[in-house]
């Protein structure tokens, strides 16, 4: 309970500092795999407004329970026009627990690992649709973006791009206002980079 109070306090302070609209809770819908895990696809508390220099969105606290309770802080932004070029792109911190559906011997051909960057492989597991255009991926993951993702975001940062929605996330229970700011900046940076690549 004390942790949750600290989370609400951190979000209130962050919203006030950045001029965001504070919200007690917000249902975002089943937009990305991580949101699907959350009860009612909801974040609570949340704040809505400007995440980065050109990016508006929502930042919120997400929790789900599967054997134990997992807590994330997430930032969500729309990336218009990305679906036609990259329907799904998941860049998940290496070692993060994700749902493993290998209960059955056969599965849909759902994803393919993208392993062309050693620097990113050390920190992330990157997967896409099996038929994702590799040239577009190489252009997106320019040396500048690779360098940024390898060094700048918070240590446990991951992102999921799914059908035009980008969800950045960190796993800390109580990141504080500075941690939320770092999450928003990393998510906005990735969103703006993807949007620029889609625009080209």
């Amino acid at each position, binding site marked *: 309970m004390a942790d949750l109070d600290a989370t609400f306090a951190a979000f209130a302070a962050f919203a006030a500092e950045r001029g965001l609209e504070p919200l007690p809770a917000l249902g975002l819908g089943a937009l990305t795999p991580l949101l699907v895990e959350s009860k009612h696809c909801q974040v609570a508390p949340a704040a809505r407004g400007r995440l980065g220099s050109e990016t508006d969105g929502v930042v919120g606290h997400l929790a789900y329970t599967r054997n134990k309770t997992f807590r994330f802080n997430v930032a969500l932004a729309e990336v218009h026009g990305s679906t036609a070029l990259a329907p799904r792109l998941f860049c998940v911190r290496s070692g993060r627990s994700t749902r493993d559906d290998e209960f059955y*011997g*056969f599965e*849909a051909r*759902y994803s393919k690992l993208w392993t062309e960057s050693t620097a990113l492989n050390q920190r992330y597991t990157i997967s896409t649709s*099996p038929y994702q255009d590799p040239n577009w991926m190489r252009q997106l993951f320019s040396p500048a973006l690779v360098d940024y993702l390898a060094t700048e975001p918070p240590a446990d940062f991951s992102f999921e791009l799914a059908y035009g929605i980008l969800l950045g996330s960190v796993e800390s229970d109580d990141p504080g206002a500075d941690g939320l700011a770092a999450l928003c900046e990393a998510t906005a940076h990735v969103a703006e980079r993807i949007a620029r690549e889609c625009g080209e």
Partner: protein
Amino acid sequence: MQVNRTGIWLIGFFGLLGLAMCVGPVLAGAPAEASLILASTGAIFVLVAAGLGWYARHARAKAAHQDWIFRNGIKGSATILEVGNSHTTVNEMPLMKLKLALDIPGVGRSEVTRREVMPVFTANRMDAGLTLPAYANPEDPAEFILVW
């Protein structure tokens, strides 16, 4: 569909256990009646493993063909016009029925229907108006893969 590590393990397990049940009792000199019962069960296991193996091989060949279309195909787009759930699931994944406006450069626009088995998360995101990449077979443009 594709076989995964669990599938390979299951094929190996049923195949080897079935073979052991067919041959083991005879080699161990077990009574004829017990050997027959075990061998019958073992034969069913072997048949199940062979069936799964055949399906895995068929799926692999189909995947290789789709990979060829992806590498050599004509890149276009497919806009979803209608989404229908067939209410059929394969290993808890819904079989979705999509009506698409397929637009392939040099071939033209056409309306087609497509059935795809998708994870639940992806199936939930399929909606009318969504435009997805598509690759058409250059030798048979009616054949295409949908990138979802």
